[in-house]
């Protein structure tokens, strides 16, 4: 049976069972993961997932059920199960679920790409990884572990709802990276390229992986990991810090991305990840950062890992401001949460990590818009400080206020120049104070960083999201707590 007919079958069954609204997502996921570690192919894996999920509103409450079995009988049975679950939910509701007006469309979206990563022969990809990993490993006998990574993912999905939507999407992304770990007398130092979490990723084709030029950067990875063993410890105290994009991306993710998710702000993630200091009462009033700080959720930016045509409840991709000239002005929302606050439309942030999972409000691309500085000028205009590069540890409280980050590497800045390398750098702060101290944002090194491992929800889902940013400076930040 064709997928469209299966989808139609599910929606008809939902209506027959008494659902006032229903949507169905049918999808396939192809996920290729390659890892070369210490000279051997440690992981050569292809994951193929398929299935469907039916979401319904019946008696004013939500129900959801999913299955991997793509047959007509299973679609009917699973839809009935979803309605039954909704009826159970309705026993504990305060009011009926209400959604923003439908934006029903019939459309197709495909990630624009030049070279399909799934069509590139496996041995060609493995060859790049083996060569690059060898360069990292051979730099020094102090390199005890070296790894090279490649990952490509494709999601083919159909979304249909009882409002008349019929959207077919094919989203593809890929990327990779390098890791070198140097060990001496029990001390361990690591360097990653181009960013941690197995590299950088983009909704582009194999041409993106090629542009990373792992071979050209492998020597530096090994060199810096070894050099860190002899570096001074990060000084403790208060100082100005300059944060490069491969760390700033996670700072944005944790301290702006998550707290502007409207489900968190409305308390529906209270049991797990927590709530948010950005409560609805503060919308349009709270000074989140300095006037240099402009942050958007943008699912349309070319190459962003969170770029798509439509979210998983059929809302078209868009850009919305979260922070404008330092003022907290917007949320990432769904049709239900947007209606709750009286917004006209959803921000288009509902995403699920598989057809069998319930869509949640997830980041798309949360971007710190470019300022008017050059990255080099920020350093030149800093008398004394620390340049923080590449995330290695992260932690933030359940309202997203108190954070602490560690980076793989840092350099002291003295009189406008990059000075000595320092190791085990950490910094900590309180979100609005920290962003309030931001006085310089770069333009020339602005780029998209892909984070393929954002966790949220119960049961847990892992989403791929993006962050656009360059380099930024923050005044009087506490550093060097570990040592």
């Amino acid at each position: 049976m064709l997928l469209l007919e299966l989808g139609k079958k599910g929606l008809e069954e939902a209506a027959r069972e008494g659902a006032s609204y229903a949507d169905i997502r049918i999808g396939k996921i192809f996920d290729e993961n390659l890892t070369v570690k210490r000279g051997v192919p440690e992981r050569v894996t292809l994951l193929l997932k398929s299935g469907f999920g039916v979401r319904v509103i019946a008696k004013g409450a939500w129900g959801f059920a999913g299955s991997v079995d793509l047959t007509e009988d299973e679609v009917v049975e699973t839809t009935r199960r979803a309605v039954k679950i909704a009826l159970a939910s309705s026993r504990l509701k305060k009011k009926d679920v209400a959604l923003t007006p439908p934006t029903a469309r019939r459309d197709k979206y495909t990630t624009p790409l030049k070279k399909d990563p799934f069509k590139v022969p496996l041995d060609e990809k493995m060859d790049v990884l083996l060569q690059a990993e060898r360069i990292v490993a051979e730099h020094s006998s102090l390199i005890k572990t070296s790894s090279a990574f490649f990952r490509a993912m494709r999601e083919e999905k159909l979304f249909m709802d009882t409002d008349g939507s019929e959207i077919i999407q094919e989203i593809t992304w890929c990327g990779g990276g390098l890791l070198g770990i140097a060990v001496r007398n029990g001390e361990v130092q690591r360097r990653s390229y181009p960013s941690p979490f197995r590299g950088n990723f983009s909704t582009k084709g194999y041409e993106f992986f090629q542009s990373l030029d792992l071979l050209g950067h492998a020597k530096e990875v090994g060199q810096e990991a070894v050099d860190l063993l002899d570096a001074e410890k990060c000084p403790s105290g208060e100082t100005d810090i300059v944060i490069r994009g491969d760390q700033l991306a996670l700072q944005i993710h944790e301290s702006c991305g998550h707290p502007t998710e409207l489900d968190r702000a409305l308390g529906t993630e209270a049991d797990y990840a927590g709530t948010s200091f950005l409560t609805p009462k503060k919308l349009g009033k709270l000074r989140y950062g300095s006037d240099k700080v402009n942050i958007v959720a943008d699912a349309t930016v070319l190459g962003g890992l969170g770029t798509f045509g439509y979210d998983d409840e059929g809302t078209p991709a868009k850009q919305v401001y979260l922070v404008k000239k330092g003022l907290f002005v917007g949320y990432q929302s769904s049709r239900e949460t947007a209606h709750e606050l009286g917004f006209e439309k959803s921000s288009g942030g509902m995403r699920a990590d598989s057809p069998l999972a319930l869509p949640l409000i997830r980041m798309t691309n949360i971007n710190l818009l470019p300022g008017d500085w050059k990255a080099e000028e920020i350093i030149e205009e800093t008398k004394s400080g620390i340049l923080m590069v590449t995330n290695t540890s992260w932690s933030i409280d359940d309202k997203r206020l108190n954070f602490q980050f560690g980076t793989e590497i840092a350099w002291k800045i003295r009189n406008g120049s990059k000075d000595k390398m320092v190791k085990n750098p950490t910094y900590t702060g309180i979100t609005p104070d920290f962003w309030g101290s931001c006085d310089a944002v770069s333009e020339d090194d602005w780029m998209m960083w892909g984070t393929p491992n954002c966790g949220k929800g119960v049961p847990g889902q892992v989403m791929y999201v993006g962050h656009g940013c360059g380099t930024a400076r923050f005044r009087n930040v506490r550093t060097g707590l570990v040592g």
Partner: protein
Amino acid sequence: MVTERLLNVAEKTVELAVKEKVNQAQAASFLWDSALTRYANSQIHQNIASKTGGVAIKVVIDKKIGTLSVNTLEERQIKDAIGKAVKIAEVTPPNKDFKSLPKPEKWTPIQGAFDKETATCSPDYRAERVKEVIGTAHSKSPIVKAVAGSFSTDMLAFAVSNSLGVSAWAKISLASLKVTVISQANGSEGFGYAVQHSRHMKDINPALIADKAAEKSITTVKPKTLTPGEYETVLSPLAVGTIFDYLGYIGFSATPYQDGQSFVKYHLDQQIFDEKLSVKDDTRDKRTLIAVPVDGEGVRKKTVKLVDKGVVSEQSICYDSLTSGREKGTPSTGHSIPPITSGFGQARPMPINMVATPGDATTEEMIKETRHGIFVTRFHYVNPVEPTKAILTGLTRDGTFLIENGEIIGPIMNMRFTDSMLSVLKDVPMIGKELEQGETTTVPPIKLKKLRFTGVTQY
């Protein structure tokens, strides 16, 4: 029978793979029927169920390994997947660390690991229990503002077969009730959390768990701010479990151990923790939750002494077949993660049945013996900062209290700790006599001589 079906699928898959002229083949099939009722703001807002299943196929051709996971149990699609796995292996360079797939060994099922009633729990049953939770919490005090949490019931089964004769399976049921209660008075919020896990849903006591969470919540409004620094600290079992989860991940797994990133590697045969501290990983201990007799490669799960009277050693490390193959004479301990994950078992080998040896104190006695300290009921967002020194950072959450002269005198703002667990667990004056079952740990409360708090949050 679910397990018979899964074993048939796994054996058939291996049979088909061997026909493709591979040297060795392994198949791990699984089914996961999960249901979860989630609530927040004192009403159900997410209510879901999903049935998933699949096979992870591994084929070996002259040490060249191809792995392919597919979420179907249908023979035609599996046949197609085998062909793709063989193609992957053919073009993959040899893995010199690979010695062999596991050989068969004797194992026996674990009695009491599966409860049919839990596996087939209805949404109405879960909704009724959630109703009881919400009602109990609100009846505790008028300042209770909102109740959030989840009640999940799961059936998980997997079977493993390989061309050397491994034929193993496991089937378990799980029920978990998690409750967060939020109170509000004079513009200040208080938070409380409680949780119960069991293999049997009927063991779950919604009124008791709701009451615990509500009690904490109403006593945590108007928290005071405490200056960061080193404090005597009493940790609840939930907080202790979080620390051991991270030590398992960064220390007792063979992956960081072989990468030179585990603190265990640099302290072999040394007493790095208090001698009163002993922790084993034992899937057959009745006090653990995830009772699977075999791992994701069909290897019998062995008991591993992670910490023996404060000492760590080579025997503290958890291996799967690939990591054991890297070390001469080291067998797999049966810690390959079962194939019921999104990555179908690609995670590092890990202890998931940690059980600590109890001490002889109660939490009340620990508090009584504390002059000026902190009672932590839950940690949040813990992460390693320097794994070889076991330095962790994280925050407290859902109930943190100041202890003065042996008494809890009131709630305090959530605080950040950053400290080396090697230093923190070196001197543990008191260990609790009651163990509490978590998802992967069964541990008592403990009293620490000191824990370094490096920051305080704001509301």
